[in-house]
């Protein structure tokens, strides 16, 4: 079927009513006012950006738009009609669909099933699956976004980027439910994608605009400006304004987000030459495992070494192996001159290694546990007197770090799962800082999902830690971040270290240089 034809029909539709309009939306959570009278307009066939700090209420607003959050007050209008959205189905029937911040596919089903899940249509007759039809339906969706994923592949065998494509193919199914052009909501779809995949995604988003409206959320302001027509900014649960992207620069947006002028250089004083402590902190000799081979790497005290590479390059596994979370098959690792015991995470912790995993929700935090307990989980000594836990000591330590990292939480006793993504990440980072014995930090996408301000704080923190002698291995969120933060960049591909690019201040490589090395 032809997308263009359909789009052509819709474009000629007369009324210039807004695809979606939100008026004075309010949502309270215990101790937080997540939405405090938000107004928002989404026009037909536009890509609207939504920006705001962590916890500004973006996800909450979007969830209200797909019927997952029941607002306490306010109105939602869809194509000039006031609606009450009670469920995802309700929203889909009104043509609103969302790709969630955390991926939401069923791993053990096929891509095809995931794509049609909940709206199988002709794929299921009287409760009986018709695999051929289902595959065809899914293929149609995949064709729409130009993806060549096999619809019968089991979803968990797909790469992260492919899974994201499946999600987009899936959300487009709402066209089948409503005769109107759909509103597609993408909540931070790029935070886990590589730059090439992001490009593909943007091509799709631009294509979507021809027949749908898109709401796009990202903390990467340059991206937002790149792909959106208009940006609406939220702060503290309120709309603070909107700007057309033409001619806007990230700084403008940032200023609106935080309410004051932000600094341009958020890689904070990355002026320091590689530290003047020439001591080798970490040295890896011919380390091998299932997914990488003969990796050699040195990191000096006070140095930040970025590792870049595509999915499958094995860089995550090197980090996990260093932390004892993945078995190795050969090689040796020395930390500060002493041979490192790679047999388990416990030994790594004791040796002064800290690890921030990429999959925060599953591996980084214990959702129902409090902020305080999450923060002191790894370094129990920070809250203990002798072998005993001292609640006052814990309170002191935790409150100090909550303040220092400006973690937005009602209370240190609040369950961490109630915090916004960015604030959760700060807690996870703080976990390694509460005790003073950290020597090597392994950061796997440490700023994933963080807003520009929080990110800047994390960068500053990393820099300060480095200056005090901590060695850091960084798997950055983007090439820009890797370049901005690292003193040296190591390129990995296919489980091997392929090259090393010095990255001292003043002589930074460009992203293009790195991409050349990577392929």
């Amino acid at each position: 079927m032809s997308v263009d034809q359909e789009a052509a029909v819709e474009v000629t539709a007369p009324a210039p009513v807004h695809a979606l309009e939100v008026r004075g939306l309010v949502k309270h959570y215990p101790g937080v006012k997540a939405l405090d009278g938000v107004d928002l307009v989404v026009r037909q066939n536009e890509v609207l950006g939504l920006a705001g700090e962590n916890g500004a209420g973006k996800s909450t607003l979007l969830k209200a738009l797909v019927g997952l959050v029941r607002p306490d007050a306010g109105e939602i209008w869809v194509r000039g009609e006031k609606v009450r959205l009670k469920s995802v189905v309700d929203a889909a029937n009104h043509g609103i669909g969302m790709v969630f911040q955390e991926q939401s596919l069923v791993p053990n089903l096929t891509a095809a099933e995931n794509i049609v899940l909940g709206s199988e249509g002709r794929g299921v007759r009287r409760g009986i699956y018709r695999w051929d039809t289902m595959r065809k339906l899914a293929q149609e969706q995949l064709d729409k976004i130009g993806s060549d994923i096999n619809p019968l592949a089991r979803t968990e065998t797909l790469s992260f980027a492919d899974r994201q494509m499946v999600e987009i193919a899936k959300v487009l199914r709402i066209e089948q439910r409503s005769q109107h052009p759909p509103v597609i909501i993408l909540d931070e779809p790029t935070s886990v994608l590589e730059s090439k995949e992001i490009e593909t995604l943007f091509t799709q988003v631009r294509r979507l605009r021809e027949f749908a409206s898109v709401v796009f959320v990202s903390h990467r302001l340059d991206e937002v400006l790149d792909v959106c027509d208009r940006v609406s900014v939220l702060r503290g649960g309120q709309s603070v304004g909107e700007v057309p992207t033409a001619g806007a620069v990230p700084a403008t947006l940032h200023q609106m987000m935080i309410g004051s002028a932000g600094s341009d250089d958020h890689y904070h004083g990355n002026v320091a030459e590689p530290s003047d402590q020439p001591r080798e902190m970490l040295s890896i000799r011919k380390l091998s495992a299932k997914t990488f081979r003969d990796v050699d790497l040195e990191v000096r005290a006070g140095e930040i070494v970025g590792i870049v590479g595509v999915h499958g390059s094995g860089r995550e596994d090197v980090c996990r192996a260093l932390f004892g979370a993945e078995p190795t098959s050969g090689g040796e690792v020395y930390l500060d001159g002493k041979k490192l015991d790679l047999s388990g995470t416990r030994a790594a912790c004791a040796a002064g290694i800290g690890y921030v995993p990429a999959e925060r929700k599953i591996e980084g935090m214990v959702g129902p546990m409090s902020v305080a307990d999450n923060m002191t989980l790894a370094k129990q000594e920070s809250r203990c007197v002798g072998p005993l836990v001292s609640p006052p000591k814990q309170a002191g330590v935790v409150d100090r770090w909550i303040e220092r990292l400006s973690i937005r939480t009602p209370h240190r006793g609040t369950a961490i799962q109630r915090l916004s993504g960015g604030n959760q990440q700060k807690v996870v980072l703080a976990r390694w800082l509460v005790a003073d014995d950290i020597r090597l930090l392994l950061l796997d996408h440490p700023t994933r999902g963080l807003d520009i301000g929080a990110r800047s704080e994390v960068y500053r923190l990393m820099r300060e830690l480095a200056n005090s002698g901590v060695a850091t291995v960084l798997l950055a969120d983007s090439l820009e971040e890797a370049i901005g933060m690292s003193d040296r960049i190591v390129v990995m591909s296919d489980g091997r270290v392929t090259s090393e690019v010095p990255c001292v201040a003043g002589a930074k490589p460009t992203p293009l240089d790195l991409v050349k090395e990577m392929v």
Partner: protein
Amino acid sequence: MNAPTAPAMAKPASDAAVVKGGPTIGQRLTSMMPLIALAALLAALSIADPDFLTQRSLTAVVRTSAPLVVLAAGATLVVLCGGIDLSIAALASLSTVLFAMWLPDLGGMTTLAVIAAAGTIGAIQGIAHVMLRIPSFIVTLGGMSIFSAVALVISDAGPIRVVDRDATKWLTQYVGGYVPMAFAVALIVVASISIVLKVTPLQSYLTATGYSESAARLAGTPVDRVKVGAFTVSSACAGLAAVMLVSRNYSGSPTMADNLLLPAVAAIVVGGTAITGGHGSVWRSLVGALVITLLRVGLPIVGVPSAYEQILYGAIIVVAVALTLDRSKVLIIK
């Protein structure tokens, strides 16, 4: 040099980071729910048969409940780390046999020896679970049949009389004339487990392991050791429960405690501990064990006919869990 000076972070002025917040009335009520369920059940039984609410009768209930309390309290730890221990009852049976066999030789030391032996067996199960990565359900199911077989073989498939009753006499006495010693011991077990958890990082370890094992491991929590520890304590408790049973039955038998498995697990769940791990406490299991005991002995004693007794038992345990489980702590009910 490894001490980073506390980095001074820029602090956005708009943030009031720390707000007051404690448990609300609703949350308090949820945590009291097991006790409320217990009281309601007791009230119902007393209405059905006013004689049930006498001091003698209540004393008998708590004395009866002691082994179940100990079994459930121990197994709660395993449940808290997300596993399950199906071997406790069979191990308790085996322990009664061991007690009866060792008593003539070991005398006063037998109690300790049995608890130590049971604990060791539990540690072995725990190690098998964490080293071989077999689900605890399977390890302990296997353990259950192995312990039963061993108990049958070493006891020659029959009960072994305990002639020297002095060794267990202390358990049959009363503290202050009213509180049965066995129950007092059970209380001490519950209290000490709970205090140890509270004042050490162990509580955090258990909770983290139960809610999210991979996150716990990546935070350097000694997940494996915590699990092995939980299995060890669980089995040691089974050993202690066995001693209590011997003190009551004057014999050890290879099947004596076998039927306590489902009541013990039911006690844990009725107390409101999440069977999926993470959320719960040994105190809850204490209350749960009392509820289950009341149901086991109370229903027939107040005259509910056998068939209806089973139907009521089934209905009440489900309703009890519906009341006691704190849904805000357990997101998905499987």
